[in-house]
């Protein structure tokens, strides 16, 4: 779907050129959700902007849906762009249009019939959780609300390809998850191909099947998410992976073990497991260095009789571990 | 040398052009004539009263009289008559003012000082009747009391544009000052259908100065030069009857 081949791009500056992309190649297949991660200034936004021809490469080619974007005249680009949605890092909303007006614009450009526009606009506003704010102007919105308008606008024309530049960076985790679920669903139902820049690993983990890691204008690592996550090769990737949160909190029949301070570093759970001989599954957990000392949390489930579990919990409590039953 | 500088305000045509001819002659007499061109009829007198200029040359006696009446603080005198510009009335459609049709349109220049002067020609030709007892210079279109042809007078057009108005046949009759007619290639003596008479014409353009200055040697020198044969010849040859030097007593 998106084929980037040996692309380089430099920006002229007073004290010499800044190389934003350096011999980058990337292939996004139809239906992929392709994550692009990397440090600030790595060239992610520049790479994304090549994919709809907003920027042209100095060298190399960019092909999207069989159109040679890197060499297409503006007229040809205009024809394919309504099918390539983009969410900008800085939103780029029209201040002169309301929430609804901004969303409508995309459809007006695509020549959607008026009646359809109205229905779709209302639907999109609901999807991004801005009900009741349809007539607000961007200046009356919070940062995250603006970003959601940008998301709705990019989805308006049911694009085949969606380019997201930090599409959820201004959103709280709950809203982020809703939006990501929405994207994943469109991807499943309609085969939407997504290229997605983010600096949040959990976004990659949650919906991407492929990921490319960028550093200094180069792709240092790329491949299936499970491969990269299981076996990170580069220092960048390893460093980025360290920030992943945990999914296990929604495991069924779970117990949450919380231990504070000194307790955190001792092998108390192991001791209890040995003593009771129970089949304990450890779903996940974390040790957090808080300002006032470490705080540990483990999520486990125990496949045993209630009285066995109760004894196990009593022992844990005696050792200074709080156990919450959720 | 600056003591010998004589600053004179003048209308552009023909006044300033005539003064330009006088300039080298005065220079020989050690007088530096500085010509300041004015496009209106108010500021030259304001400037004269304020001492910004020593003399002006743009108005005729009837106009000066009415200005003095309205501005008691002005104390000006006539230092000498110079020339007369008979106004001509032109038409591409008719041969004389009497031929003008019922409801005809006549275009005048936008100079209030000349409205009465032009209307007097129409009165002379018997086309309109004017209110009795109004000084010629104060006559306005509103002073027409008898207008059998029901002529319309349109008094708002810039004088320099009037030849264009004539060539474009915009009205039944157009008044054109002789100098502009000349510039546009018209013959100000032969072409008009009616001309102001040059004799007994009270509208001689004068050199105006503050009272008392008329005896200043440089002013007298100026008037003398303007009355000289050289200047009279220039006027006659250059303006071909459109501008006529005054008769010298």
């Amino acid at each position: 779907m998106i084929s980037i081949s040996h692309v380089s791009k430099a920006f002229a500056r007073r004290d010499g050129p800044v190389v934003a992309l350096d011999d980058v190649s990337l292939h996004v297949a139809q239906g992929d959700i392709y994550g692009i991660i990397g440090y600030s200034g790595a060239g992610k936004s520049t790479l994304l902007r090549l994919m709809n021809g907003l920027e042209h490469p100095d060298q190399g080619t960019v092909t999207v849906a069989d159109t040679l974007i890197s060499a297409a005249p503006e007229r040809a680009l205009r024809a394919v762009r309504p099918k390539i949605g983009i969410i900008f890092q800085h939103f780029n909303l029209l201040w002169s249009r309301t929430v609804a007006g901004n969303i409508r614009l995309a459809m007006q450009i695509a020549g959607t019939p008026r009646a359809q526009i109205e229905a779709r606009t209302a639907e999109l506003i609901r999807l991004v959780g801005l009900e009741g704010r349809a007539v607000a102007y961007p200046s009356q919105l919070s940062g995250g609300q603006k970003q959601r308008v940008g998301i709705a606008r990019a989805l308006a024309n049911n694009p085949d390809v969606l380019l997201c530049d930090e599409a959820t960076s201004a959103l709280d985790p709950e809203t982020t998850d809703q939006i990501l679920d929405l994207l994943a669903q469109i991807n499943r139902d309609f085969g939407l191909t997504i290229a997605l820049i983010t600096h949040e690993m959990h976004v990659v983990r949650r919906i991407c099947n492929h990921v490319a890691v960028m550093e200094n204008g180069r792709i240092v690592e790329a491949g299936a998410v499970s491969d990269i996550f299981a076996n990170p090769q580069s220092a960048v990737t390893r460093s980025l992976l360290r920030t992943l949160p945990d999914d296990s909190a929604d495991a069924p029949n779970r117990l949450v073990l919380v231990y504070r301070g000194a307790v955190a570093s001792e092998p108390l759970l192991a001791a209890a497991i040995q003593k009771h001989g129970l089949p304990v599954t450890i779903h996940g957990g974390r040790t957090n260095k808080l300002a006032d000392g470490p705080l540990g949390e483990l999520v486990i489930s125990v496949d045993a009789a209630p009285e066995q579990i109760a004894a196990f919990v009593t022992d844990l409590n005696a050792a200074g571990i709080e156990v919450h039953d959720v | 040398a600056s003591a010998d500088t004589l600053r004179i305000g003048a209308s552009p045509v023909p006044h300033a052009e005539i003064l330009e001819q006088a300039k080298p002659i005065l220079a020989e007499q050690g007088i530096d004539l500085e010509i300041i061109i004015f496009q209106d009829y108010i500021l030259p007198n304001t400037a004269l009263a304020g001492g910004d200029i020593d003399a002006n040359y743009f108005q005729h006696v009837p106009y000066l009289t009415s200005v003095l009446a309205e501005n008691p603080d002005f104390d000006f005198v006539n230092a000498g008559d110079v020339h007369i510009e008979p106004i001509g009335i032109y038409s591409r459609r008719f041969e004389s003012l009497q031929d003008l049709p019922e409801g005809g349109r006549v275009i005048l220049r936008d100079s209030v000082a000349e409205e009465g002067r032009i209307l007097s020609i129409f009165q002379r030709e018997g086309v309109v009747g004017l209110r009795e007892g109004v000084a010629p210079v104060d006559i306005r279109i509103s002073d027409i009391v008898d207008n059998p042809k029901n002529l319309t007078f349109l008094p708002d057009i810039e004088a320099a544009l009037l030849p264009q108005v004539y060539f474009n046949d915009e009205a039944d009759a157009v008044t054109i000052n002789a100098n502009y007619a000349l510039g546009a290639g018209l013959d100000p003596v032969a072409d008009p259908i009616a001309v102001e008479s040059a004799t007994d014409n009270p509208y001689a353009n004068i050199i105006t100065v503050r009272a008392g200055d008329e005896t200043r040697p440089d002013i007298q020198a100026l008037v003398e030069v303007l009355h000289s044969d050289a200047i009279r010849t220039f006027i006659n040859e250059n303006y071909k009857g459109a501008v006529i030097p005054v008769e010298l007593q």
Partner: protein
Amino acid sequence: MFETLLPRVDPARLWQATLDTLYMTAFAGVATMLLGLILGALLFLTSPGQLWANRVIYGVISVVVNIARAIPFIILLVLLIPFTKTVVGTILGTNAALPALIFGTAPFYARLVEIAFREVDRGVIEATRAMGGGLPTILLRVLIPESAPALISGLTVTLIALVSYTAMAGVIGAGGLGHYAYLEGFQRNNQQVTFAATGVILIIVFAIQLVGDRTTRRIDKR
């Protein structure tokens, strides 16, 4: 009231002059707005670094616009006589003044339009292009609405300049308040006329300014 306060002012003539001024301002104003928008858009779009960047077209429009702005009004009037004669049928009166008024002020507004368009956020134009928007979309749906406050304020400035500009159209018998003030008031030393005509001009100017300011503030959603 008039007779007692300003006995030397003829109300009928003042009214006629007001109508003339309003007529010329309104008519030339609308034309100036349209022509100015078109020329301004062309100037903006063809200027270096913009969507249609084109040295030649930019150069030509720039020349035409600058010539029209630089030539003294009366000379412009004379130059336009053949055109005026053909289009309007006469070279005298309020209608004949319109071409010169429009040619004199439209280029001026065109420059203000160009400046206003240049203030529009590049990111927004980029977003529109990314949605597949072509020139008509960018112009009508983005540039104009996004720069509307500046366009309206610019139009206010232009219209007020136009009001005082109409005074010069008096030389071809177009009438109007400015000419009335000059001819009847100034030339004839009739202060009451100068005062009355200038007063009406001021009222018109303030009305324009007020409407312009209100509109600007109402549509500015930043």
